[in-house]
């Protein structure tokens, strides 16, 4: 690590995603009024929550060399389960806050199930991850439709909306700071809203799992399995069990995305995450992970997800049809892999 010479080009190539993000922000700041404001930046995160969550879960799976295609539909499934449970609880007389809390916790637990099945198929029956998780798309889609019978879940308590679209801090001139509750405003008064609740929930989850991946034995084993399954097996790692849990992490994050979608849009929809197949995987790959496994970090995935979320918000503020987002994400995805082909292997890990 001493006599390491890195050319300027390598330095940039290694951090291209970061520079790309900065360039993107500068570009939209120039062309879109209102983009580079506290509100604009919070919108990026607010609408990016699904991509952040799905891609972080996907990162675990991709590091082991697998893929999880089912996250979008597991997300839809979870949004419906959460909505249904909360409606049932409130109708049976539970206080809205308790109903939402219990409903969320139960949904988190239920959302482990698709991952358990995916992981068991992959680890024990040796079904290729692509096929196992595609089957899970059909199954979770079917079960979702079965649960709602074609009608989006409705009649959620108002509190869900308050949480889903509320912020942690509000500041209004003359009224001071308030937490969680939006102050009553006179006409013409402005309130500064800071830190959307769902963004906070999202990043708490991401921080916890980023820690697990980076600092714990569990994370180390995840990398080892992706790097060399045989080595992992022979060094005594319980590879099968580990793989099952990795797919459970992924579906847990899909479940979290579903719960947050439910809070945000106050409904549950089977296809809530159907369009996110590209975004979820693209964020991980743009972040530098390899589909062959062994590589990738949460921080870089977040960078990839931010590139996508910024693009989406930037285009939206600009009034450009969001179709263009798909084209650009496709181009950036391919560009990302091309850049990674050019960079030589980094010498150190940390």
């Amino acid at each position: 690590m001493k006599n390491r010479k890195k050319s300027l080009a390598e330095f940039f190539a290694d951090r291209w995603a970061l520079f790309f993000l900065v360039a993107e922000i500068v570009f939209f700041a120039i062309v879109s009024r209102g983009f580079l404001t506290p509100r604009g930046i919070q919108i990026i995160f607010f609408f990016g929550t699904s991509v952040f969550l799905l891609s972080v879960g996907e990162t675990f799976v991709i590091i082991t060399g697998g893929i999880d295609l089912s996250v979008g539909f597991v997300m839809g499934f979870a949004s419906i389960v959460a909505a249904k449970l909360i409606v049932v609880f409130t109708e049976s007389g539970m206080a809205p806050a308790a109903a939402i809390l219990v409903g969320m916790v139960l949904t988190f637990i239920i959302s482990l199930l698709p991952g358990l099945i995916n992981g068991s198929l992959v680890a024990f029956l040796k079904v290729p991850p692509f096929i196992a998780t595609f089957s899970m798309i059909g199954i979770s889609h079917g079960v979702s439709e079965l649960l709602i019978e074609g009608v989006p879940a409705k009649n959620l308590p108002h509190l869900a909306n308050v949480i889903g679209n509320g912020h942690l801090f509000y500041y209004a001139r003359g009224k001071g700071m308030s937490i969680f509750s939006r102050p009553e405003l006179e006409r013409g008064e402005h309130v500064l809203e800071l830190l959307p609740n769902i963004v906070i929930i999202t990043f708490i989850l991401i921080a916890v799992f980023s820690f697990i991946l980076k600092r714990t034995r569990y994370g180390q084993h995840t990398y080892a399995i992706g790097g060399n399954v045989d080595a992992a097996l022979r060094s005594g790692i319980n590879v099968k069990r580990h793989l099952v849990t990795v797919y459970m992490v992924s579906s847990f994050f899909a479940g979290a995305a579903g719960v947050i979608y439910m809070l945000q849009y106050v409904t549950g929809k089977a296809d809530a995450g159907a369009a996110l197949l590209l975004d979820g995987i693209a964020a991980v790959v743009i972040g530098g992970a390899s589909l062959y496994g062994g590589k990738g970090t949460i921080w870089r995935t977040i960078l990839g997800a931010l590139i996508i979320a910024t693009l989406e918000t930037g285009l939206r503020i600009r009034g450009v049809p969001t179709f263009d987002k798909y084209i650009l994400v496709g181009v950036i995805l391919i560009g990302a892999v091309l850049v990674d082909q050019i960079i030589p292997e980094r010498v150190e890990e940390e």
Partner: protein
Amino acid sequence: MGFLLEARNVTKTFGGLTAVDNVSIGVKSGEVLAIVGDNGAGKSTLIKMISGVYSPDAGSFYFDDKQVKIEHPRDSLGLGIETIYQDLALAENLNVYSNIFLGREQTKRLLGLIEVLDHSYMYSESRKILERLDIKIPALKSKISTLSGGQRQAVAISRSIYWNARVLIMDEPTAALGIAEQRKVLDLVRSLKQHGIGVIIISHQMHDVFSVADRIVVMRRGQKVADTKRDETNTDEIVKYIVGAETVVT
């Protein structure tokens, strides 16, 4: 008999094929035993049984003269039997010290609660073991993918030794190496002997076998056809055993 590890009358069949047929071998502490034989002679199956990858259909194992069960890799690892396969079983995407500690990572408690990897401990312990074996690897934080073949072999060996291997099984340790690196690995094997470790080497290279082995076992068609001290034999004789003495005109 004084063997550290001994396999007595082990047999393994696959379907209708007998891969290893009633073979007994043993290795003493501080001894290098070479197992040689043609492709398909049963060498790999034999060591896979010793390392617990296959369980034998018949026969028994003794460690320190006590009968032991080896039915799973965990069993043999628990006894201090480490195996280095040809592919070395290193995770190329992880660095040197992470590989030495792979599967047995050292952790510490953060705030007395959360278990996290103890990188500095693993780093310094790895440094020590590499120094003890006189192995020179410049950066312990380098990924395995940046190392040479000999360096990788050295990492694999260090890993075994760090985990108190008493018997080290090496499958074709020099097969993929350049001349200079082959010598280094053989030097390393000799220094393992000094540390009192029993080494079992599988090799095709007669030169290697004769330069490090104390004893040579020849396998042919699943059976042990010779078990001799190196000083009491020569290359020609061993080759005759390998190809089948009856077909060689003497």
